[in-house]
């Protein structure tokens, strides 16, 4: 019989000396799961920092100006003439373009998550807490939006309002709020049945105050766990929009644009597509791993608390 599928919560915890050795405890599935989570957490942190730190320090690093053209040094391979990542079709330093482009991509991602998180938490908690018509309206809008062809609608809206950074941020935020709202709604639905809410009502607190001061803070921590996963999605969405030409326009060179520019040269200059793409992958893998690990950890803690 395989031990991998035995119930993890039965790991012995008694302080008395027992026949269970430390070795065996280490092998128990609970311990192994904790180890997986820990590894994911570390790996995620390292990968995220590998990308974020150079981007944050781009202005301080001794790298060339991202827009400085040198037609004599067009499409240099990586590591040639001090260009770590090589140069692009106009002789601009690719590393510098990736780092400065990353500032734009990351900023859009973070802003979009903040906006979608705020909209999602507010509308989701209103739907969950007040119920009735508020719930009906918000849930319908949610459903309708989730059945729309997402990328196409985003392209349309960008075409409508122009590809400026606020518009792209807003578009990504609008694409993402349903996820937060759904999660918050389901959390609030559970929360509002708890005794403390009744107690607050009995004390005569207004509903809005109960919601804002007591319910939302209680669900916020759990709801915020999706933030990292949303950030990963936002970065991917922005790069897809940029790739299709609906991203921030010049002078901003976001990652998707770098890749779409480099696409014309894949036969001769592999690095122009490969390296910016790797930056995206490393960042998004890192953020996703972090989000995954935090969620795993939280699930375990909450199932322990409830005594399962």
């Amino acid at each position: 019989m395989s031990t991998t599928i035995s119930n993890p919560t039965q790991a012995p915890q008694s302080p008395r000396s027992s026949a269970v050795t430390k070795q065996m405890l280490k092998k128990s599935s609970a311990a192994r799961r904790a180890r997986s989570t820990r590894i994911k957490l570390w790996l995620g942190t390292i990968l995220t920092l590998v990308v974020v730190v150079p981007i944050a320090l781009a202005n301080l690093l001794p790298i060339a100006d991202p827009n400085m053209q040198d037609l004599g040094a067009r499409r240099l391979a990586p590591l040639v003439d001090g260009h770590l990542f090589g140069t692009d079709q106009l002789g601009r330093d690719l590393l510098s373009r990736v780092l400065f482009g990353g500032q734009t991509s990351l900023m859009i991602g973070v802003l979009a998550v903040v906006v979608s998180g705020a909209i999602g938490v507010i509308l989701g908690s209103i739907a969950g807490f007040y119920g009735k018509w508020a719930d009906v309206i918000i849930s319908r809008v949610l459903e309708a939006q989730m059945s729309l062809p997402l990328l196409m609608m985003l392209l349309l809206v960008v075409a409508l309002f122009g590809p400026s950074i606020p518009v792209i941020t807003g578009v990504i935020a609008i694409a993402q709020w349903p996820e937060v709202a759904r999660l918050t709604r389901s959390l609030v639905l559970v929360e509002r049945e708890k005794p403390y809410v009744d107690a607050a009502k009995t004390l005569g607190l207004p509903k809005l105050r109960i919601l804002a001061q007591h319910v939302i803070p209680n669900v916020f921590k759990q709801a915020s766990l999706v933030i990292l996963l949303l950030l990963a999605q936002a970065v991917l969405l922005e790069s897809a929009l940029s790739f299709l030409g609906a991203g921030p326009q010049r002078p901003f060179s976001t990652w998707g644009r770098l890749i779409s520019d480099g696409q014309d040269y894949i036969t001769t200059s592999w690095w122009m597509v490969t390296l910016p793409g790797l930056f995206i992958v490393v960042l998004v893998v890192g953020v996703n791993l972090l989000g995954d690990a935090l969620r795993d950890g939280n699930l375990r803690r909450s199932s322990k608390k409830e005594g399962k």
Partner: protein
Amino acid sequence: MLTYLPKRIGQGLLTVFLTVSVVFLLIRMAPGDPAASFAGPLATNEQLAAVREQFGLDKPLLQQYVIFIGQLFTGHLGQSYSFQAPAVQVVMDRLPYTLTLATSSILLAALVAIPLGMWMARRSDTDAELGVNVLTIAGQSMPDFWTGIMLLTGFSVLIPLFPASGFTTWGGLVLPTITVAILQIALVSRMVKREMVTNFNAPYLNIARSRGVSERVLTWKYALGNAGIPVFTALGTRFAAMLNGVVVVEVVFGWPGVGSLIVRALETRDYPLIQATVLITALLAVVVQLLIDLAYPLLDPRVRLGKAASA
């Protein structure tokens, strides 16, 4: 069942109607003049006015909308500006390509993801599983356009195994399918794993085991049987979403499907074509979703349609 089906169909049609209406409004609010992009940069104002009249764009918005609603019922959505053919026909010509790509991708995804997810569930929290787990996270973290270009560079440019673009031979299907499937495999295998682990930990499985049911039957019949429905739903929903065009991948591979069509239609402000594409893909997505719901009772006899409408 008798009330369920009409209700579901009604809801679906309402969604489709709202979608096309929103799109109708949005494209008309957008800057950019279809007449200008049709008549070319050298057109005079008189020519532009003539083109607008020909397309019916000189009429008030409300009147255009009423005409559009009428068109919805006849199924004739006007001539595509850039193709000079009925817009519905243009979309229908492209649809088989998107259907082919979506079908092959979802099949590949299911074939890989289900065994992979089961393996991950059985080996849960071993080092090997952790490795695969990280790989699946990587799979869902790669931008699909980048994966596509990488595959193109590798297997079409460096090692010329497959054609780089278009769909002239069956070999042209390989790279786009893999590109689309990678993300799906990553997402679905993780879901299979989650469902299987939940079932492995469920009390009924311990009871079955204590009664001497073999591990193989436990895994394949009990756990997989119960994990089947959510997984099937996920696969179906992903398939329905792909029918809206696998936009980015189609653009990368020059795939003559609906996704690359919509990008071109948006660029040329081809109103009838945009509307026809949205209408047809939205209808298809709704139909697929309905078929999935109808298939529930076949997979799980406990499900009664209408009562489990929340699913």
